[in-house]
């Protein structure tokens, strides 16, 4: 863990040895390594370590009784501050149904999350409605319909012959007619560099005017987290992040990267394959695991 590493670094200086500013520099190197090993993106790490270093110098950590612990405390605080407040869903405005679009890379967990989110919404007293707008992946519509039936949530699908834009528009209409409070639109996984598919997302957004566009991202994402989040944000403007597969042992540094480059809150965590594997995000859930 980072604490152990810093402990070792400072212990190695020998008993009674005075810690100097160079030793703090070495400690910052340890922090940098720990964050990179946790998959935080390099540019984000550099920036983050810069801030921690400033605070460490400012706090005169080299004069502290326990410099290693002091630094860990600073890193912890900076991480928590960066990860930010648990995000809430934004349902301001009276037009119902409020539309939530789920977007992201292939296989990140959107369709499964659409189900989980619907269940969560219903528990919160907001009647959900699901729309199967992925016409590309084989059996994607079947997957969403199966999930919708499992959790007893009404849905709209039009097979795979119509355009996703048309299905989304009709889906929101159907949700309105069903008196639903929130309409969750599942979209096909796509690369942020695929202009045609990113345009499709823009068109869906234009037509359904979503209250939320949530980027569903895999907690084990590596260095490309920055480009992925930026790509989706620049194209359609995301309003929140959902980090999935947190039940694995990936350190989850991608969360920091995505949060920093989009300045968008992390709203939920996916914690299992089941429909109840869904939690409201809280920074404590991630700070410890990122630091290892």
């Amino acid at each position, binding site marked *: 863990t980072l604490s152990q590493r810093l402990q070792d670094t400072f212990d190695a200086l020998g008993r009674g040895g005075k810690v100097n500013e160079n030793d703090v520099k070495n400690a910052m190197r340890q922090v940098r390594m720990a964050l990179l090993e946790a998959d935080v993106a390099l540019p984000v790490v550099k920036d983050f370590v810069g801030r921690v270093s400033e605070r460490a110098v400012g706090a005169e950590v080299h004069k502290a009784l326990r410099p290693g612990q002091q630094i860990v405390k600073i890193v912890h605080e900076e991480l928590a501050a960066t990860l930010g407040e648990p995000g809430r869903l934004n349902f301001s405005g009276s037009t119902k149904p409020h539309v939530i679009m789920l977007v992201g890379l292939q296989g990140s967990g959107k369709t499964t999350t659409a189900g989980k989110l619907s269940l969560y919404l219903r528990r919160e007293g907001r009647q959900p409605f699901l729309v199967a707008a992925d016409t590309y992946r084989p059996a994607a519509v079947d997957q969403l319909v199966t999930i919708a039936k499992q959790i007893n949530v009404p849905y709209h699908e039009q097979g795979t012959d119509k355009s996703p834009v048309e299905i989304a528009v009709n889906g929101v209409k159907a949700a309105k007619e069903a008196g639903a409070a929130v309409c969750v639109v599942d979209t096909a996984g796509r690369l942020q*560099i695929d202009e045609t598919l990113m345009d499709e997302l823009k068109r869906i957004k234009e037509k359904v005017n979503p209250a939320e566009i949530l980027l569903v991202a895999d907690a084990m994402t590596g260095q490309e987290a920055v480009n992925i989040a930026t790509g989706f944000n620049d194209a359609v403007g995301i309003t929140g992040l959902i980090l999935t597969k947190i039940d694995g042992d990936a350190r989850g540094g991608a969360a920091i990267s995505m949060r920093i480059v989009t300045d968008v809150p992390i709203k939920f965590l996916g914690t299992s394959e089941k429909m109840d594997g869904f939690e409201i995000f809280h920074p404590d859930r991630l700070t410890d695991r990122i630091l290892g």
Partner: protein
Amino acid sequence: MLGSSEITDEIWDDIEAILIQADLGVNTTLTLIDDLRSQGITKQEELQVALRGSLQSLLQFPPPLDVSGRELSIILVVGVNGSGKTTSIGKLAHRLMLGRRKVMLAAADTFRAAAIDQLKLWGERVGAPVIANKPNSDPAAVVYDATAAAKARGYEILIVDTAGRLHTNYNLMEELAKIRQVSGKVVPGAPHEVLLVLDGTTGQNALQQAKKFKEMIDVTGVIVTKLDGTPKGGMVFSVFNDLQLPVHYVGLGEGMDDMVLFNPEIFVKSLFD
């Protein structure tokens, strides 16, 4: 980035940045750079050549899959959720069938919604029969039935799709070990290949995934998917070096032709694109 003048600290930083951002990981990157620094190179172009050479020397062209010379060969496909197993099976079946092999698929993901439907659609797409039971039935039983069907109908390769699972879930890893065991009971020596499908966008956790899957079910090779995106797939270096797992194929898209044989030269070159 490299011209024809001397090598500055900034150049070393640039190289470090490229490798780290390609998901090679801190340890692999530092080891590589230390090794390069100790070579006493003075010119930038020489460094360029040495760097690529070092990277390439860490990889190998894969051997062919062990699916010939017997009545029936079984390939078990495994990996964490959403990595691209089912899609890769479609692509692999297509490749093998282009090579005139008779391929059958087994839908042993009986858990996830529409997993069986998805594999059946792929089977239709590439022209391979799919053996399946009901959803939520025993995956090992599907393997058993599929093996019997393959033998009876003279199919030479059976590819088994399994449910995605996190290597941290002990029960699911046990289930996978059991599926592996069952295939060995019906065909001695099976499975002849256990291919781990790794999502190319994954960071350092890929090594952990590979370690655990290898430990629990003796993975024999790797497929890395989704490298048509911006990720470079650098975790391949540690997976290959630490675990000696050959990287057989790279997924470059969602269609049945979007998978290529792993090529160390092309792979290394793309790190610098």
